[in-house]
């Protein structure tokens, strides 16, 4: 069907679309027009950007720290459990965009060629090496604490834990060779990984073991006597 809409009519629809109020009956007409009108595509971008400024008028409500902790625990756990990015993607993504072709770029291209030959054998690029994997266990739980090489957090993956009521949480503790246990993370259920996960930030140096206990939601200053798993932080 021919596009019979004026720019002004389309602008009405673009504004509705930017606010999420456009209905499907009008969307087809709008998209048909956009397919052939660069000016209206630009207007669409502007309305979308404008709409995205609306939240700036709200008083910012900072998210609780647990949200970041839970999110990143899940992300790092999934990264550890399923590092499936193909070799060519990593090579391409490793080359800086919009930059002058420099020695670094040349090296990247050479590396890409080398990896290409290597990748043609059907392999993936080497993933960040997991230098140590510590087993952990409890009455019903088993799992591992994977400590990757270089900078990224250690990831605790656990199976066999029971769901908790919303008023409780599984808190992870590092136990130092001397001194009091330090609460470092909370275990979160991860359907994607199929168990419970926690990202343990920082160095494990100076700690002899790890444990998890059941604590009130939000955590405790010291662990209660409810240990559900533990593991030694020494090379097996």
């Amino acid at each position, binding site marked *: 069907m021919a596009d019979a809409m004026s720019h002004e009519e389309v*602008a*009405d*629809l*673009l*504004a*509705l679309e*930017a*606010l*999420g*109020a*456009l*209905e*499907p009956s*009008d969307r087809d007409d709008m998209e048909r027009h956009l397919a052939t009108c660069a000016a209206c*595509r630009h*207007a*669409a*971008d*502007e*309305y*979308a*950007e*404008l*709409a*995205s*400024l*609306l*939240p*700036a*008028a*709200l*008083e*910012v*409500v*900072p*998210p*609780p720290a647990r*949200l*970041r902790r*839970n*999110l*990143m625990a*899940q*992300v*790092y756990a*999934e*990264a550890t459990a399923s590092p499936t*990015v193909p070799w060519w*993607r*990593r090579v391409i*993504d*490793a080359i800086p*965009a*919009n930059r002058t072709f420099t020695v670094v770029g040349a090296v990247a291209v050479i590396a890409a060629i080398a990896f290409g030959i290597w990748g043609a054998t059907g392999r993936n690029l080497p993933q960040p090496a997991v230098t140590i994997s510590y087993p952990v266990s409890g009455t019903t739980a088993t799992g591992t604490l994977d400590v990757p090489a270089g900078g*990224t957090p250690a990831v605790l993956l656990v199976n066999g834990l029971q769901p908790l009521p919303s008023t409780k949480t599984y808190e992870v503790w590092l136990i130092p060779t001397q001194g009091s246990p330090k609460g470092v993370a909370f275990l979160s259920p991860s359907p*994607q990984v199929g168990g419970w996960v926690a990202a343990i930030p920082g160095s494990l140096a100076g700690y002899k073991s790890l444990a998890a206990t059941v604590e009130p939601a939000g955590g405790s200053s010291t662990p209660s006597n409810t240990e559900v798993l533990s593991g030694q932080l020494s090379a097996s």
Partner: protein
Amino acid sequence: MHLSDDDIVRSISAHSPEGIEALYDRYGGLAHTVALRILSDRGAAEDVVQESFLAVWRRGATFQSGRGSLRSWICTIVRNRAIDRLRGDRHRTRLDTPIEGESIEPAVSDPWAAVALELSGEEVRKALAELPDEQRQTIELAYYGGYSQSEIATAMEVPLGTVKGRVRIALDKLRASLADRVETPWQTQ
């Protein structure tokens, strides 16, 4: 180390956890505020924010270059998910675009990117306050209430055509007002 939005996009596309971490650190507060404003429930808002960032993480490698800024993109994802939660998925008339179809390409040269960086919350509040009540209410119903154009027309007891024009006029006024506040060269269309 300060990452630009471009750096974050590349990191996300490379399926790097650090990319999501940087995205959250930059826009997590905004995302949480949007979700909480729509849902008025802290637990539900946290769920939506976590689901949104996890969706970005899990599908990051599928993004294609496109249009819009990173801030706009994450706001759209969070808003759409919050509205879906609000509506209980009873009737997905919509309204939103699935995340697979969203594209990211920070428009660093876009004048609105500069506007966004310079604007304070107070300036946006003032610009909104200058709108006639019916225009501001229409924006609120649509953006935070998840109302469609027909639902707005019913709720405000005005013809559908009035709603269409009102939304565009309101956004055009807002654009002009905000552009004036940051002294950014701007030509309204």
